[in-house]
């Protein structure tokens, strides 16, 4: 599934429904984030929940594509794509005094 444009608090409700429809079968699927131009913590949370659901069902989530907006939110919230895909809790990420 490709997420277009925005992955924010305003979109998560609709996207959750879309994602749940896709998750029906084996739990493994791919989300293409390449076209995301807006993203916030609520969006990340949805991605994480999707990953968790996939793992619970015995499958996994693959995030593909690169998005500057997503990268920034990840960096600001201390989250990595690894955490989302492999469902680990946080690891310390250093961020210096800028």
């Amino acid at each position, binding site marked *: 599934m490709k997420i277009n444009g925005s992955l924010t608090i305003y979109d998560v409700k609709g996207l959750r429904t879309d994602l749940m429809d896709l998750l029906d079968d084996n739990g493994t699927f791919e989300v293409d984030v390449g076209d995301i131009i807006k993203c916030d913590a609520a969006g990340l949370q949805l991605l994480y929940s999707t990953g968790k659901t996939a793992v619970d069902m015995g499958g996994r989530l693959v995030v593909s594509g690169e998005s500057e907006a997503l990268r920034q939110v990840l960096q600001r919230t201390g989250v990595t794509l690894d*955490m989302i895909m492999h469902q680990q809790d946080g690891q310390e990420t250093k961020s210096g005094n800028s």
Partner: protein
Amino acid sequence: MDDLNRFIETYSQEAEELLNEIEETVLEIEECPDNTDAINRLFRAFHTIKGSGAMFGFNEIADFTHHVETILDHVRNGGLPATEELNDLMLKAKDYVEWILACKRKGIPVDSGVGQCIILDLNKLILKYQCYKNESVTHAPSNDTETQEKIPEKTYRICIRPDRGLFANGTDPSLLLDEIRELGECSVTPLFKDIPSLNDLDPEGCYLAWDIILTTQEHVNRIKDIFVFVEDECGVNIDLIDTEDESLDELPAKRLGEILVDRKNIAEDKLKDVLGRKKRIGEMLVESGLTDHQTIESALAEQGQINDVREKRRGERSASCIRVASGKLDTLVDLVGELVTMQARLSRISSTIDNPDLLSVVEEAERLTEELRDNTMSVRMMQIGTTFSKFKRLVRDLSKELGKEIELFTEGAETELDKTVIERLDDPLVHIIRNCIDHGIEPPEVRVAAGKPATGSIRLSARHSGANVLIEIKDDGAGLDRESIYVKAVEKGLLPANADLPDKDIFNCIFVPGFSMAQKVTNISGRGVGMDVVRKSIDALRGTIEIKSVKNQGTSVIIRLPLTLVIIEGLLVEIGQDYFVLPISIVKECVELPREDILRNRGRDIANIRGDVVPYIRLRNEFEIEAEPPEQEQIVVTGANGNRAGFVVDRVIGEHQTVIKNLGKVFSNVKDISGATILGNGKIALIIDTQNLVENRELLEAD
């Protein structure tokens, strides 16, 4: 678009409250520049405005307040003194933010010129302060190196545990994290364990949490400030875990479990797990001889207690206030009014049906209705203090402008009045206080010459007096010039010449339109429009206004207002088949008017009541009621603003709790009736605007 408007509205409301707080706080600081509590409050208020401003897209406000915050930070850290110059700028800053909000609401583009000027002035102030500081440092003896020593770094553990509603509230936690990062070196650890799978996920609820380790030179208050505007939606725990400073005495000693966690000997959740089964950790610790049972119990009790207290406080904070649109309140009051009327009808009907079961139920319903009515009315009540605090600013600015020294004292700020009354009281009070400042209080040199203290005082007080509230504005200025007013009044044909009149009659002249005693018209007052407008506004609130003045000692203006405009205590009277209500607050007495008295007066509408001459109006004639008058009519004598007038009616029925209903647009030009009410028997009674009726009659007779 609707959403946007809602955001603007919510933000504006919040910001307005904060701006009021800012104004009050600045004035507080002005009185006591060392009040660190007030300075912190000021900082937090601007910080909240900035934070939520950025969140709701009010970038002009966020950018501007950022500068204000910077300078306040200097003040807070004890360097920059809270001078008059600074206070002036703070008030200007407050006004500017208020103006931006007004522009946003009206959809007008914001001109940032004013803001730039304020920022420039603020920067100058910082620069001045820094020059001064550098000077004092270079002049300081060379052995005083401690002041230049590096500020010690401290490391904090910040645990952020947002509530579910954080996102819905418009908060983006990444902004909070950004702000923390600005303070120093930090590591951010996101916690996902609460995020459920898609099935159980409320996508708009916040399940994320963070643990942050921050090493910074900033004071812990700087960290706390970041969370000021989300403190209700976000649990935040800040612990000092490491410091370069040797003096750790002021900190509570670390508990064993924490030390173990800090040393990474055991994982935090493991420790929590064990702590949950307190018996085992107690045993373990006791076994290893580190501590005893009691210490463990006590530590747990302390933790529990603190949590409980915090929880309770948080609960109280969120439950203590809710925002309700005033329109909803008006509807509620309206409905309760209807209910009270219906209840009266029900009581009346039930009293004719002799059924004990029904009677007891109706009585109970009556009690509940009364309670509901009183409660609903109290919801509309607001403390007058909010209005009072606005005047502090007015007095401060005007006295400065006029080169006078004036202090404002307020009393009874907690007195409650109906919301509408308070709102409509604003303008009249401003007028009166302006008059006090401009004409009342003399310049310092004149005061000193007259043997008074150089600083004049204005006392603003409010207190309850029965179903009324008395508001008094009292100054210790020059007082009204009785003679000059009298001369002017005679000149204008308002009063007869050479008459010995009471002060009241003479002072009342200043309420006449166009009557001004000011020798020069200033931009503050003196145009002769003002006191008559004041009088009109107070009349419209069904209140009265009175002036007392002693030359060279001061003037006091006393305003008497009803507690509420929705329900009045009325006197119910009957003429023919019709009912009328007169406000009981102005009724002085009711006496019988024998027919022979009318004849004796030969049709002139004047009654002789115990030797006093009282002019009266026959309501029967006024409202053209054709029914035959009874043998014995009654006269209701009223007195307001010193004028006595009688109203002749057929029968006085008695007191009546009157729920006022507007007559509606169709009858908006009916002058002598101020409203209507529905009686227990379903009939309508008109509420008479006695003041208007008397004035109209006087005008007619004058013609």
